[in-house]
Each structure stands twice: as C-alpha cells, then as structure tokens.
C-alpha cells in the first residue's frame, strides 16, 4: 500500500500546498469533498459504472510474444491505450469531473501537454454537462494539432499558453491563474499526480484502478507478480497508478523519464505548482525548460510521491534519449502491431536497452496511451 498523506499533504518531505492564499480555502474544500466522496459508496458506484460502461474498463493485458522473444524477456502490456479517449487520463478525469459536479461547480479548467488530459477533460465535461477550458502551451498546440481539434469538437475552449517555454509548465501556470480568478464556481482538473495537496493523493487514488486490476490480472496470467513494473513519468500519474498495485511486492518499480525532462534524475528539490518535489532548476531556483520529443513528458517537475519513492529507494527513475524513443516507437509498432503514444515509447526504449540485464524476467509495462496523436509528428521526423 502507498501511504496516505496527513493534513500537511506530505509524502516524506515532498508535497505540501504552496499556493496563493486565494486558493487555500479551495484546496481545503476539495480535500474534504474528495474524502467524503471517496468514502461514499454512491459516488464510488457511479464512478465505477462510468469506468466500466463509458471508459471501457477493465483494460486488458496483452502479452508481447514477438518482442518478448526478440528481447529474451516476458513482456506484458497493461492496455490503457484502449480506454475511451485513448489514454489513462480518463480514469482521473471521470473521477474529478464527477467530484466537481458533486461540489456544485459549473465549469472546469485543465492544462494539457500532449492533449490527452485535455481531450479526456473535454470528454468528461461534455458527458456531465460542465463548461470546459483547456490551457495548452503554444508549442504543443502546434505539435498536437489533432488533439486540439478533438477538444474543440467536444465543445471545449482551447487557449494557447504563450508565456515562458510555451509547453506544459506554462499551461499549468495559466490554468492556475484562471483558477485564482474563478475559484468560486470553477474546478481545476489537474492532469497528473502533481500540484497542491490533495491533488497528488487524489489523482493517485483515481489512477490506482490500473494497479489494482493489473495485480489481479498478473496473478491470473503468471501465477505470481512480475519482476519489473514499468511506466513513463511526466507528472507521474500513470506510473503511480500501476505502481500502486505492486509497491508491496518484490517487483522493481521503474519510472522512465525523458533525458530532457529528468526531474528525479537531474533535478533537486524545489517548489513550483503548489508542491515541493524534484525539479529541474538553475542555481537561483529558476525553473528550467524541459526538452522532450513527447509533449506529455515535457515537464521539468514530477509528482511529489515519485520524489518520495525515489528518496527511499523503492522506485527507480532512469531516462532515455529522444533518439531511443523514436526507435522504441517503431519497435513496438513493427513487432506487435501496436502504435504506442510517444510517452510510452520511452518505456519501450528503456526495456529494449536494458533487456540484456533482464533475461528470462517478466516485465509489466503500462501502455498509458495510443500513438494516433503522434503519427503526424513522427511522419515529419521519419520522413
């Protein structure tokens, strides 16, 4: 079991609630509302029904016989790519938007990197009848044009964030500025296990469905737990979701970061976006701009619970380069007929690189999203 943070919202020395005073009461209200909802069987039943009948859960496991044979490992995918809207983001968004509605909010704001959280938010808002505004870095608006159009089709307003690096971190800033101004009637649906308490905890609880299912499914398929549990890490929601099912097993937990956004690997503790966590920053605490081929991982920070798991040595956070990711993307497509999201191609890349050290082992990989959104970008890269 992962730990439950106390009133100070800490995982060890990470987390907290470093927000403008205006937002403190809203965070406290959310904390209470989430606690209440999570312990209410009516809410849980409503959420579980939506996850089953709308999102398509449980997601299946797929064993990759071809790639596994080639690499000398047993490779199993948890298929979050098959969820409605194409990624794990829907798990958290259905929970959060149901909660927003229960709290009487009329509108949600969200930030998005690759656009998957934005699409999921727009989808849930359309389904449950709330207004939706999505902030997205201007750079990402260009490289994920398809998702921008999808969000607009779903009735959401998409606003390009033009400040700073014009990627995910700046979209978070804009969403927070919106929320500071609209907090009375607006719910901020954060897209990962980041932000001020209770978001890292709450989003993890919503994503823990991945780990709970995967653990039972692995026991059925393998008769035991896998040796490695792997996922990509942007803010870290899909990773914590699958880790949550295996922290108390012998499995090694591997969160793969992009080399250009390796918060755990290259960062030091800092405070931004409401939380204390590992952060890529300069000697004066200016947050550095991440550089990654994948918009969803282009983030200089990481959720506080990952910082905690790294600090106690329970999880490991290696990184892979963009060039390795491009190979990984094609590898899974060609050997298994599955086009992964670029985010997940990071994990494929790590597995391919480390396979010589894992011969005969069982590796569970969270395939957090499908690659449709990345096909145009890859077309440019591969020519």
């Amino acid at each position: 079991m992962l730990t439950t943070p106390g009133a100070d919202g800490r995982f060890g020395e990470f987390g907290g609630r470093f927000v403008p005073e205006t937002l403190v009461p809203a965070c406290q209200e959310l904390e209470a509302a989430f606690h209440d909802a999570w312990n209410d069987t009516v809410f849980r039943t409503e959420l579980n029904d939506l996850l089953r009948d709308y999102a398509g859960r449980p997601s299946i496991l797929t064993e990759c016989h071809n790639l596994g044979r080639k690499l000398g490992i047993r490779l199993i995918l948890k298929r979050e790519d098959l969820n409605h809207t194409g990624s794990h983001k829907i798990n958290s968004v259905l929970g959060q938007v149901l909660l927003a509605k229960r709290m009487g909010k009329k509108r949600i704001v969200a930030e998005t990197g690759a656009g998957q959280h934005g699409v999921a938010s727009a989808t849930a808002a359309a389904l449950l009848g709330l207004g939706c505004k999505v902030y997205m870095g201007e750079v990402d608006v260009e490289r994920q044009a398809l998702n921008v159009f999808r969000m607009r089709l779903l009735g959401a307003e998409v606003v390009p964030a033009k400040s700073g690096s014009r990627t995910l971190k700046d979209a978070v800033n804009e969403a927070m500025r919106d929320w500071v101004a609209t907090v009375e009637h607006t719910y901020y649906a954060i897209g990962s296990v980041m932000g001020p308490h209770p978001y890292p905890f709450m989003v993890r609880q919503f994503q823990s469905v991945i780990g709970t299912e995967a653990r039972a499914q692995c026991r059925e398929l393998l008769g035991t737990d896998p040796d490695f549990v792997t996922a990509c890490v942007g803010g870290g929601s899909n990773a914590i979701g699958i880790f949550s099912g295996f922290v108390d097993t012998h499995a090694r937990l591997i969160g793969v970061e992009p080399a250009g956004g390796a918060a755990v690997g290259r960062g030091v503790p800092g405070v931004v976006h409401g939380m204390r966590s590992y952060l890529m920053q300069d000697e004066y605490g200016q947050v550095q701009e991440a550089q990654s081929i994948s918009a969803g991982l282009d983030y200089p920070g990481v959720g506080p619970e990952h910082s905690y798991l790294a600090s106690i040595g329970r999880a490991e956070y290696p990184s892979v380069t963009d060039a390795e990711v491009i190979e990984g993307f094609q590898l899974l497509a060609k050997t298994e007929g599955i086009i992964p999201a670029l985010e997940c191609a990071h994990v494929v890349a790590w597995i391919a690189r480390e396979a010589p050290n894992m011969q005969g082992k069982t590796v569970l990989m969270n395939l957090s999203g499908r690659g449709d959104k990345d096909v145009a970008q890859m077309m440019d890269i591969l020519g």
Partner: protein
Amino acid sequence: MAVLHTGKLESHLRARRDAGRKLLVPYITGGYLGWTDAVRAAAANGADAIEIGIPFSDPVMDGPMIQLASEQALERGATPLTILQELRSIDIDVPLAVMCYYNTVHSAGNERFSHSLAEAGVCAAIVPDLPLEEATEWCFAADGAGIETVMLAAPTAPEERLPRILQRCNGFVYAVGLLGVTGERDELASTATKLAARLKALTDVPVLIGVGVSNAAQAVEASTVADGVVMGASVMRRLIEHDADAVGEYVGEVRKALDAAVGVK
C-alpha cells in the same frame, strides 16, 4: 502565543498612518531596465515604502504586465544576488520589501535568504505562494534575521482564517483586492474594500490593498477603508512603455490624490 516584534517597516507605516496619511507602496520589478532609477523616482515622489519584485520563471500570481517585466529582467541576467547588490547602493530612506516566489527562497535556503535580505537593507518579504500552513520554517528564519513577513489575506478566506493570518503577519497586511492575478482593471473590485473592512476590524497592523488597484481614483477609493494601497501593474506599465520619470510622475499623481482625499496640504 509569542507577540511579533514591530519591525522597521511596520513602525514606519504605523507612524505615517497614525499621522493621518494614506499609504502608498509602489511595486517595481528588480532587474528590469531602469529599475533602480524607477525606485529612486518613486521614493522621491511620495512612496511610503517600495516593493521590489525578484523575477521568477513561473509567476502564478502575476498577470501579463508583471510577467513581461519578469521575463525581460531574467533575460537581462537578473538574479537575487544582482538585485540585492544594486539595492545596497541605491541610497534612499524609504523602507523596502521584497516580493518573491518561494522557490527563490527555497533554493538559497530560508536562513541564507533572510540574512541576505537583511544585509541588503531590506525590511520585509512578501512571498505570495507561501500560505500560512507552509510558512513556519521561513518565518522562523525571517524572525531570526529581523525580516518582517507580510502575509496575504484573500477575499476567499473564511472568518476563522483571518485572525490566524494576522497573528503571523508583520510589516503590513496585504489584502488581495480581487479574485485574480496582478494587472490593471477598469474598476476597483467590490471585494477590495469588503476584505479591507474585515481586516481593519481585526487588527491594528496597517492594511494595504494590492492586486487590481490601477489608478489614482481607485487608490483613493480603496483607501477610504484600507490604510493604503500597493500598486504594481500600473507602475510597471509606465516603466515598460516610458521610463523611470514616468514612474515618478505617476507615483506623484497618486500621492497627491491620496493626500487631497484626506485633506493633507
């Protein structure tokens, strides 16, 4: 409950307020082209204290104007060290407060940062993303270094929260005038004077409204209830679009309006 000592900024502001004056605190982004001249111009034209912003890469409480100033200051190579260094030699007799986001403090360390402020002659710090619940360690270090910590109070605060904020606040209370980030608005939000009235009923510490106080008329309106105002975006716009002289002129204009409203000659 320990009583916070009254520091230099608070004594200065209290004395002026008690003499019947409305308080004017302009904000200037440190490191922006011409900023030290702007500080001198503000001091010479009737500022009661000056708030110096230390630019940060991710200023979530700031609107477009101060974001722009921060970005350009950073591009010019501004760091907390260069800004404090320049402040040392600025030679004005108006008390200074620094406004910075918490990561700027965190990366230096609470102790080291508060001492570096004190050494530069800064009286107080305003840290807009460090709410009461997270402020303990900073406040301990700041108290030790003789730095006053200006706390923010927001219109969203429930009744029981304000006294707890006030208990931990010295220098002045920063009453956030509206729901939103810094930037000029056509009108003073109704939340501004409402919050100031709630605070005035609870404390004798000077209550200043900041965020969204955009011109002399709004400063006067805010000061009918509050002890004064903090003005940021409208000041920085003058520095960005014109120069330090324009800042001086503007501060002088607001000063005159505030004085006229209370009948000071």
